[in-house]
């Protein structure tokens, strides 16, 4: 029987974190997901900055999610100043986010998560045995980056999405090129579903889970939404996001933790599928049926399956957006000008790892007075500790090495983005 398990450095996750478990008489006394990624103090650094400087700075919270950080930041600024963007801008932003999602999910599935289920230490060793599998993952990842480069101007930290619109609009040839790539990607995403269907997903981390996601608009599956819905049946306007993400400081972590009504909750691909999955259509709907997990699933490892379903969704949705853009033709729109006024703006998007909130208060000159950013990984940390706790208690008789490896698999299933989680909110802003 073990007294403790310490994983000093979680591998195949973004950033620096570890796990410490103290055990007494077969029960977990304490479990900490230690976040020792350094603090970059984003919010206090940018107080006083002019509004248009905010998105390029806050995109740097995270490289993998930089597109969705940028878009959410733009939307929060536009909300504060009452800027109404055009339908074309909405479509292009959606496409950019879909690209980010394809890149992020493909990276996580093929390079970080799937090697666990196939018995490899990572994509590097997997590539020497199964190069065609890794190649397919890299192709899908590249597809996401191709979209981000075409629409955002850069795969990491996009430059082209600006307040009120885009710096330069894509032309018809670029869209047709993307369409070709997406069609190829759709076949590879379907092959990914076939692969995922063959994996044996263990159930040692199963436990009662509250899910939270944005309620997608217009009855369609989407990464945008104005309301937060939870599997408890609650529904809350995004302007009241703090009622859900009730953050607290814990000493073992540079990231704060979130609880809803004193309960941890999960956000991300699995939460979205659990709450909005019935709105999926086309091949994504078929993929969900094929993988056969249902709305009562309480196993976080299924997040990897949900990511695969969302790969199919994101590619189909991107194709749909491009069809619409081609049908109406790209209009030569300039970014909408901003009329600065004092006020507050809040926006939310579904990032690859779950709900992302940006909320800003500006003075009458458009300078930032207060900022609050809540990232999905920060929201997930408390729930991750809960899943790790039940896993340890079920696996207590296994060797330390096997137990550690399995705890890493649980942590990795969340696709944690630790840089993101350590962004730091001002305490007194509540």
């Amino acid at each position, binding site marked *: 029987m073990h007294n403790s398990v310490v994983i000093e450095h979680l591998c195949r996750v973004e*950033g620096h974190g570890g796990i410490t478990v103290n055990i007494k008489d077969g029960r977990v006394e304490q479990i900490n997901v230690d976040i020792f990624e*350094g603090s*970059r*103090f984003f919010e206090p650094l940018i107080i006083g900055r002019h509004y248009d*400087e905010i998105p390029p700075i806050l995109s740097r919270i995270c490289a993998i999610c930089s597109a969705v950080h940028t878009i959410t930041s733009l939307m929060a600024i536009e909300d504060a100043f009452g800027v109404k963007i055009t339908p074309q801008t909405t479509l292009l932003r959606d496409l950019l986010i879909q690209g980010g999602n394809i890149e992020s999910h493909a990276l996580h599935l093929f390079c970080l998560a799937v090697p666990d289920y196939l018995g490899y230490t*990572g994509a590097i060793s997997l590539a020497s045995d199964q190069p065609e599998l890794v190649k397919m993952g890299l192709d899908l*990842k590249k597809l996401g980056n191709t979209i981000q480069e075409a629409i955002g101007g850069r795969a990491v*930290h996009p430059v082209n999405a600006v307040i009120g619109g885009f710096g330069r609009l894509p032309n018809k040839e670029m869209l047709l090129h993307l369409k070709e790539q997406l069609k190829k990607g759709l076949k590879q995403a379907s092959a990914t579903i076939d692969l995922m269907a063959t994996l044996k997903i263990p159930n040692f981390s199963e436990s009662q889970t509250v899910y939270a996601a944005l309620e997608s608009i217009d009855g369609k599956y989407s990464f945008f939404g104005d309301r937060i819905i939870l599997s408890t049946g609650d529904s809350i306007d995004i302007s009241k996001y703090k009622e859900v993400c009730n953050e607290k400081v814990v*000493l073992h972590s540079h990231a704060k933790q979130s609880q809803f009504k004193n309960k941890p909750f999960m956000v991300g691909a699995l939460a979205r599928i659990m709450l909005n999955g019935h709105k999926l259509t086309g091949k994504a709907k078929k993929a969900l049926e094929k993988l056969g997990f249902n709305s009562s699933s309480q196993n976080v490892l299924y997040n990897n399956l949900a990511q695969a379903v969302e790969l199919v969704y994101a590619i189909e949705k991107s194709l749909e957006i491009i069809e619409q853009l081609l049908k109406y033709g790209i209009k030569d729109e300039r970014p909408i000008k901003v009329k600065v006024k004092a006020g507050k703006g809040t926006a939310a998007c579904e990032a690859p790892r779950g709900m992302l909130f940006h909320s800003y208060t500006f003075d009458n000159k458009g300078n930032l007075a207060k900022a609050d950013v809540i990232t999905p990984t920060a929201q997930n940390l408390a729930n991750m500790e809960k899943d790790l706790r039940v896993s340890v208690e079920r696996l207590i008789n296994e060797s330390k090495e096997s137990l550690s490896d399995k705890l890493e698999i649980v942590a990795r299933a969340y696709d944690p983005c630790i840089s993101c989680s350590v962004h730091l909110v*001002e305490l007194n802003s509540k």
Partner: protein
Amino acid sequence: MVKPKIGIFGLTGCAGEQIVILNCEDQLIDILGAIDIRYFPTAMTKNDEKCELDIAFVEGAVVQPMDEESLKKIRQRSKLLIALGTCAVWGGLPAMRNDVSRGEFLEKVYGTKGKSFKSIPAQPLKNFIDVDLSISGCPIEKEQFLKAVTYLLHGDPPLLPNYAVCTECKMNEYVCMLVEKNKLCLGPITMAGCGARCPGYNIPCYGCRGPVDGANVASEVKILKEKGFTLRDIENRLRSFAAQAEILQEQFKKE
């Protein structure tokens, strides 16, 4: 040929450089065939924590004592140490306001519990150890990284541009953001290598790659002031990515 042993390390940052490396999708499998990756925890488990390395790539800034310790250990075990990205080369965004005490930030962010966290002003790698080569960018450019790796695999020092973004912008015949569009563009004083990416999208240069050697910062500031930008706006932009660069610190002292 014995494959060179490589380590890819991240201190504190957004992981942008590691993501750019993983974004070399078309070249990744070939690169993996030519090198022996011993340490890359973002991408693999069972990393070698101790072996001697031929090349260490290090991204991120030093913002806490733990980063400094890790960095010194990496230096000890590596023949060549390469700073990747603006955070590693210049301190990056986290070093924007090193004039404000970290204690103040910690208390603002974590309340009284902040006292138990350790934080130091964000700094580039060169403040702690010898750096053999610097590749800046927020993030680094994929092509520049690939070219550097190719040179290194042949045993040659990589050639990096030592001119301003402005030069690349003119070569691309983009409309001048500074003179013609009256935007707060840092192209004239920023290190090239991005192909003047932002002006190509009608966006002024934010200086994300840090200052070019011998940049005439005073002249840039003078032009911007003549165009009606306030000193505050100019200083904020200059501070964003490379506030710790000596050439910019000199300018801040003048103001």
